[in-house]
């Protein structure tokens, strides 16, 4: 089902693509890239996949999908989007949001189908959501949101700036953010690690 999709982005080209992408201004690159995606430019699609695929995988992992299945579903989502673009049914392409929605839709469909096909015992092995709230539901709970915002607000201003810059703009690489802020890439990554750690602790504490 997903076998032919590896051809879309050979692993060895990903590093080179990312290196190309961080050298250009984000806004120019995004608008130009959207146009090329709408035109069906294969290179543009490969670049988009290289940049955003892990984001799809993480979104699926957060829904308790296994890593191997998450990767398959992410690739299937990209294929569907490309097909939709070829058929001309996409009015505009906003990434990674559109791809994430497609992947989550596929995940729901997949889990439902597997659950029906394999019965209750085996569906447990697929780690279907078992009444446990999704990360979106958890984060959207008022108390959790308040605490998470308070945590972000308590960060030193420079760290908060790094966090907001990197996570508010999904097209910005760590290298571009570091260049923009005049700090090292390592510093950006360490800061984000620290924020992630504190947020992880917060999610763990939240019932």
């Amino acid at each position, binding site marked *: 089902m997903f076998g032919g999709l590896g051809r879309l982005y050979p692993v060895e080209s990903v590093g080179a693509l990312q290196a190309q992408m961080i050298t250009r201004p984000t806004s120019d690159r995004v608008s130009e890239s959207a146009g090329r995606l709408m035109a069906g430019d294969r290179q543009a699609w490969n670049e988009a996949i290289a940049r955003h695929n892990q984001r799809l995988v993480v979104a699926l992992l957060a829904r308790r999908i296994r890593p191997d299945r998450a990767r398959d579903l992410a690739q299937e989502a990209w294929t569907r989007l490309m097909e939709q673009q070829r058929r001309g049914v996409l009015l505009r392409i906003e990434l990674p949001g559109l791809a994430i929605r497609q992947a989550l839709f596929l995940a729901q469909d997949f889990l439902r189908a597997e659950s029906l096909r394999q019965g209750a015992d085996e569906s447990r092995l697929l780690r279907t959501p078992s009444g446990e709230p999704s990360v979106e539901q958890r984060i959207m709970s008022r108390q959790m949101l308040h605490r998470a915002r308070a945590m972000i607000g308590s960060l030193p201003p420079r760290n908060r700036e790094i*966090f907001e810059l990197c996570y508010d703009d999904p097209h910005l690489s*760590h290298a571009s953010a570091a260049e923009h802020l005049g700090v090292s890439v390592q510093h950006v990554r360490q800061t984000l690690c620290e924020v992630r*750690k504190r*947020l992880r602790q917060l999610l763990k504490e939240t019932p």
Partner: protein
Amino acid sequence: MNDSHVSDESFDAYVSDVLDAAARALLEAHVAACEPCEHALLRHARAEQAMYELAPSCRAARRATAVLRTCAIAAGLLAVLGLGWALHSKNPSLAQGVDRADAMRPAGDAGVAALLDLAPDHQ
């Protein structure tokens, strides 16, 4: 990654997409066979997802605070200006910077009128 479990640093690198393909595959293979690491990956993925969801609202909240602060300063300035204008309308001699010495100096009926206007309680 050590012999027993995947480290937090490796999970961080995985979710933020800085691992190379080989290391990523190794981590995924380990997670598939290790339940504690599977749970750890879930926690990391959730935290990463939450960060993407939090950042826009945090930035918007900070911008809103900045706008409110600017509005408060602007309102304060307007209040001061308004007060000055009101005083000017009521008593032009105050706002126009008429020399108080001139106002205080006995100058016939006009000087008396000015004094009375300035200090009505003393009439």
